[in-house]
C-alpha cells in the first residue's frame, strides 16, 4: 500500500506541483488549501505524513502544527514544515514539527526527507 501524504498550502500551483512530484515518486497525495482540513481529519483515514506551509493565509501553519501535536490521536503523524522564509526553521522546535524545508528546494532533498520521516 502506498503511503499517504497530506499537503497543505494556500498556493494552488504549489499543491499541483507537489501532487505531480509526490505521485511521480509513488505516494498517494491529498492536498488542501485550507488549514482547517488538518484539524478535522477523519480518524479512520489519517495521512502518514503532513507537509505544511508555515505562513498560511487564515490559519497559521504554526498553530495547526501545535494543535496536531497537542492532540493525542494525531501526535504520531510526522509534520514537515515548508516555508519561503529561510529563518522559519527557528520556530520548528517550539511548534514541535518533525522537519523543515526552505522553499525553493531540491526534489531529491524533499524525497530524502520524506523517506526518512516515513521510515
Amino acid at each position, binding site marked *: 500500500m502506498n503511503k499517504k501524504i497530506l499537503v497543505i498550502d494556500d498556493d494552488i500551483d504549489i499543491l499541483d506541483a507537489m501532487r505531480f512530484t509526490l505521485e*511521480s515518486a509513488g505516494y498517494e497525495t491529498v492536498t488542501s488549501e485550507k488549514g482547517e482540513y488538518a484539524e478535522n481529519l477523519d480518524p479512520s483515514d489519517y495521512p502518514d505524513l503532513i507537509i505544511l506551509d508555515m505562513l498560511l493565509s487564515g490559519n497559521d501553519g504554526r498553530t495547526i502544527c501545535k494543535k496536531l501535536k497537542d492532540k493525542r490521536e494525531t501526535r504520531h503523524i510526522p509534520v514537515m514544515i515548508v516555508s519561503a522564509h529561510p529563518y522559519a526553521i527557528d520556530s520548528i522546535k517550539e511548534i514541535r514539527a518533525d522537519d523543515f524545508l526552505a522553499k525553493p528546494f531540491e*526534489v531529491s532533498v524533499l524525497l530524502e526527507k520524506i523517506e526518512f520521516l516515513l521510515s
Partner: protein
Amino acid sequence: MQQDKRKTLKNSSLNITTKILQESHIFYKHLAEVTPEAVVVHSEGVIVYANDATLLLIGTKNPEDIIGQPVMKFVHPDSIPLIQERIIKMLSKRKVAPFVEEKFINLKGEIIIAETKAVPFTFQGKPAILAILHDITERKRVEQELEHQASLVATSADAIWSRTLEGIITSWNLGAERMCRYNAKEAIGSHNDFIVPPDKRNEIKALTKKILKGEIIENYETIRVTKNGKNINVSVTMSPIKDVTGTIIAVSVIARDITKQKQVEDRQLFLEQVSTILGATLDYKTTLKNISKLLVPYFADFIRIVILDENKELIEIATHHAERKMLPLVQKLYSEYRNRTDTTYGVERVMRTGKPEILEKVTHKVYANIKNMSKIDKIIKALGLTSYMGVPLKIQGKVIGVITFSSNKKGRIYSQEDLQFATEIARRIAYAIENAQLYMDAQKAIILRDEFISVASHELKTPITSLKMYTQTLNNQFKKTIDNKLHVYFEKMDQQTDKLSRLINDLLNVSKLQHGKLEFEMEKINLNKIIRDTVEEIAQTTKHTIIIEGEVEKMIYADPYRIYQVVTNLLTNAIKYSPKANKIIIRLTQVKNTVVVSVQDFGIGIEPNDQKNIFNQFYRVTSPEEKTFPGLGMGLYISKEIIKRHGGTMNVISEKGKGSQFGFSIPYLIDVISE
C-alpha cells in the same frame, strides 16, 4: 689865528659831535642788529634797512634779497590794505602806529604772522618808516591747533569726558550728552556713579588704580546706564591726565556705544545656537520645544509655535512663558484667539496672509472691535503684553505654521530689526521642519520599498518552488523512460531557476542589510569544513579545478550559512570572470589574530579605479569588452557587509589581464584551542 683856533675848535667840537654821533649811530645800528625782533626801515615803498632778525624771518642770509626790494613784496595780500592805510596815516600824522597782527610772506612763500609796530622816521632826508615785527607764527599755530582739538572733542561722535581721580566729572562733550542723555550742566561737577551701574562701580576703582600707575586702558568693554535707565554696552579708553610736574591728577575717558554691534554679534551667536539645536535631531517637535526655551527670555517673554499637521489642522508645538505660573493665562489668550476671523493681529491672520506682523505697542485700540473684547482685554492686561510680533513658517512659499513673540516688559519694544531677526529664526526653523519632513518621507519610501521587496521575493519564491518541482520530476521521469539527451536541458532549466532564486535572495539580503535586519546565527566554527563543502558543491558546476591550499587551526565566531554565502559568491565570481582559465586557488591562512580566506583567479582582472568601488552596492564594472558578464552588482556588497558584521574586512588585489584575488579576514577566538 684866533679865527683859526676857533675854526680848529669848532672843527674839533664838530669832530667830537660827529664822532659821538657816529658812535651813537654805530651803537644803535648794533642795537638794531642784535635785537631778536625784526627791524625794517622802508622809504618810498622800498626797503632800505633790515636787521639780521629780519633776514632770518624772511629766510635768507643775503641782505640784498631784501634791501632795495619793494616792501609790499613781503606782505600777504590779506594785510596789504591795512598796511597801506597805516603807512599813509603815519606819514601824514607823524604818529606811531600801535601793535597790530599782520601777515607776511617769506622767500619760501610761507605765511608769517607778526605783531607789527611802526614809527615814522626820516631816512636820508626822506620820509621813512621803521617797523618792528614780532614773529607770532608758531604761537598762532599752537593756538589754532588747540582750537581745532577743542572743536574736535566738542563735536566728536564719541563720548569724551574727564573726571578727577575721585570721580567728579570735569568736562563733558556733545558725544557724551548724546550717549548718556545727560547734558554738560547736569554732568559736570557730579560724581560719575550716575552713569555706572552699581555692579560696575568696583570695576571703575580697579581701573583707576591701573591708571594711577600710568597705564592706558584701551577698548575696555563694559556697561553704562543712560538717563532713561537703559543699559548700554560701551567700549571705553581711559588715559591719565598729568599736571606740569607729571603727577596724574585726572582721567580722560573716551567711550563708544557698542550696543548695536554687541547685539548683532550676540544675535549671530544666538542664530548659530538655534541652528545647532535644529540640526541635533530630526524630531522637530522636540527641537521646537527646545528652541522656544532658548527664545524665552532672550528674545521674548512668551512665545508660541504652531504648525499645520497632516490633516491641515493647526497644532500647538510649543508654548512657553518666562514665568511658569503665567502659562495658563497665555494658553487662555491663545484659545480666545483661536479660529477667529475678526482679529487684526494674531496666528490666524499670519496663517491667512503669510506675512510677518509687528505691533510695537499693544494698545486697547488693536482689539477694541472684536468679539469678547472685554475678556481678551482682561487677559492681555493680566499678562502685561506690551509688544508683539508674529512671523510665518514657510516651506517653499507655503505657510505651514506661525511663531509669535510677545513682550511684557517696558524695555522690550519690538522694532523692524527685531522683526527681521524673528523672520530669520522662522526661516531656519521652517528649513529644519522641511528637512525633517523630507527625511521622514524618504524613510517611509525606504520602508515601503523594503516591504515591497520582502513581499515580492516571497511571492517570487513560490512559482520558483513549483517550477523546480516540475523540472526535476520531469527530468527524473525522462531519465528513467526515454534514452535521449532531454535531461540535459532539464538540468539547464533547473540551473536557471536556481540562478533566479539566488538573485531574489540577494535583493532581499541587500534590503535587509541596509537596516541591519539581516539575521545572523552566530556559533563557534572552523572554516576548513565550510570551505571544503562549498568548494565541493561549486566544483560540480564548473570546468575549473578549484584547489584548496592551507588550513586554519583557529575557531571563529560566525554564521556558517553567511560564510558559505560569501565563499560561494567569491568562487562563482572567480569562475565567471576567468572564462579562459581552468584553475582557481582558495587559500586558508592565519595572519596576526585573524583567519584569512582568499580566492585567486587567473581571469580578466580589474582596473584600479574599479577596485575602489567594487564593494559598493549595485556597482558594476562597465567596459565594452565586459558586456558578457551579467549581474546586479549585489554579491560583493553583501559579502563585504556580512564580513563586516563578523568584525572582519574584505580586500581585493588585482591586475588587469592577469587575474584577481579576493579575500576576507575574520578575528579568531583567542581563548579556544582548535578542534
